[in-house]
């Protein structure tokens, strides 16, 4: 019988190459960092770093271009899907991604994301949903939950006045042009692993020219939620997941059959 014997320690995980070796400005425990890391891991694994052009948006991630080791352009608030369209139409063989928050994508940029999806633009959108406007100090977002207190809904979101939060992934999945639209979460290891797989499939969709892909990622915002990072994970799981189900909303048959 073979006896296991100790060899030297081998690296089983190290920082992805596509991340620049700098500190990020994100708050401690903010899962933007996890989102960034997963994108970098996937692009490294797929060997796409040198073919990728990122489109940064406006929000906490406005300086995303400082953190990734590839070409980036900066979009005005909400316009990233339109800018990405411009880049991709000139360079159809490059990988174009947008990285957007709830204000950017679901508020000021709602027209741009709907139409990019409707046109079936061959881009990948990473949508960070943390139920508030982080960069500007925690105002109500289209994704803020009913009753949730924010700096512009101090008494809690009043659905009579402000309406109900928008489930963007579900909404976009009704469009013919949307090929891969899913929601995942970054609140625990299992969900983070599922998120990575979804990002992988999203980029595979783009590589194969199969249409519009978006991964909505439920994320924490400890600073504006007024919670510790660990408490925020719990709040996300208890409060956000029931309203924003973690699921696949549109998976084109060709993508469902992909083996990666």
């Amino acid at each position, binding site marked *: 019988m073979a006896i296991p014997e100790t060899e030297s320690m081998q690296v089983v995980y190290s920082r992805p190459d596509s991340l620049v070796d700098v500190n990020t400005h994100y708050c401690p425990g903010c899962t933007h960092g996890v989102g960034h890391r997963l994108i970098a891991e996937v692009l490294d694994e797929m060997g796409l770093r*040198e073919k990728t052009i990122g489109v940064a948006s406006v929000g906490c991630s406005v300086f995303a271009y400082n953190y990734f080791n590839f*070409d980036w352009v900066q979009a005005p608030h909400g*316009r990233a899907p339109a*800018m990405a369209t411009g880049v991709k139409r000139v360079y159809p063989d490059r990988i174009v991604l947008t990285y957007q928050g709830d204000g950017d994508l679901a508020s000021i940029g709602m027209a741009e994301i709907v139409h990019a999806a409707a046109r079936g633009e061959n881009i990948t959108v990473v949508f960070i949903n943390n139920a508030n406007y982080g960069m500007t100090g925690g105002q109500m977002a289209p994704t803020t939950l009913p009753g949730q207190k924010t700096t512009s809904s101090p008494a809690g979101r009043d659905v009579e006045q402000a309406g109900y939060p928008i489930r963007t992934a579900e909404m976009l999945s009704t469009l013919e042009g949307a090929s891969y639209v899913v929601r995942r979460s970054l609140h625990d290891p299992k969900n983070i692993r599922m998120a990575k797989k979804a990002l992988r499939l999203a980029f595979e969709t783009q590589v194969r020219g199969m249409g519009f892909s978006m991964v909505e990622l439920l994320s924490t915002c400890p600073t504006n939620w007024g919670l510790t990072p660990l408490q925020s994970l719990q709040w996300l799981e208890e409060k956000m997941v029931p309203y924003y189900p973690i699921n696949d909303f549109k998976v084109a048959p060709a993508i469902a059959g992909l083996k990666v």
Partner: protein
Amino acid sequence: MTRELMKGNEAVAEAAIRAGLQAYFGYPITPQTELLEWMSRRMPELGRAFVQAESELAAINMVYGAACTGARVMTSSSSPGISLMMEGLSYIAGTEVPMVLVDVMRGGPGLGNIAPAQSDYNQIVHGGGHGDYYPIVLAPSSVQESIDLTVLAFDLAEKYRSIAVVLTDGSLGQMMEPAEMPAMQPLRTQFPDWAVSGCEGRERRILTSIYLDPPAEERTNLRLAARWQQVEANEIRYKEYFLDDADFVVVGYGSTGRVALSAVRAARAEGIKVGLLRPITVNPFPSQILDDLANRVQGMLVVEMSAGQMLEDVRMAVSRRIPVEFFGRLGGVVPFPDEIHNEIRRLVQGPLTTDGHPRDRWLRRMAAITGSPSVN
């Protein structure tokens, strides 16, 4: 190349294609929709990028993305649509990437109408977008000139990493005239060293208009200003008609300049020593020639299809040395040569003054012409 009868909007579109346009993103709006429609047929024919965007707001941002690749890219619109593009133009200027914008002005403000106007001069020349930025603005007055200036616009935009605007109006967009189209230029295959393309074999590049550190933003602004000084030194264009012995000068651009030329010819036939200065670049503005003329003529008449926007740039160049009078038609009304001819006669008859504002005198005259009330 032979001359063919062409519609202004379509001529501009084809001229851009001949100049190596790689991507067009636009939205329908009267009176320039023919440009979009021409592109929708020709660009796919040639395997180039065309998207009818969901709005002008989206269109200008698609242009912004494509411009970051260094490709030749353009959009076109008219007054209300141009207003939607102001955010994008400011960002494009702040990122220092080149693009061409065709603005086919119409009556406003607001929804206005679809008739020709020149009431967006301030919006375009003096920056409707936020911040200190300096678009190169070219103002043709015929279909042929529209073609030639469209081709020039791409060259200037690239040379100065700037926005270049072809500023026309509804009549130039819609009119049909014989014109000659330039030969087809090949598409670019080499791109500038600031352009993004995927960082294969090189360091990554970032294109942004953010400079969070004020001194860094100041350096950027100074760089833009210095570049503008280069443009001012090298790219001013205008056309002179009958100025050698002129006692009076009419100043007008675009369609109005063209109508004014007919009036000037008619006045000359009567023996009036009047000439026309027609700016071709309204930005950079031909201040020097106006300054020179102010030293030797008795008065100027500025004619525009607006309430007097270029008027102020003329007044500034002339600095009250001589009287500057104004005549304008508004809201889509196009002046006829005889109206301007009458104005020239009035100028010659005098008395003229440098007191007060010419707009006020004009508004009083307009009350008589149109029956509209004037304040004083």
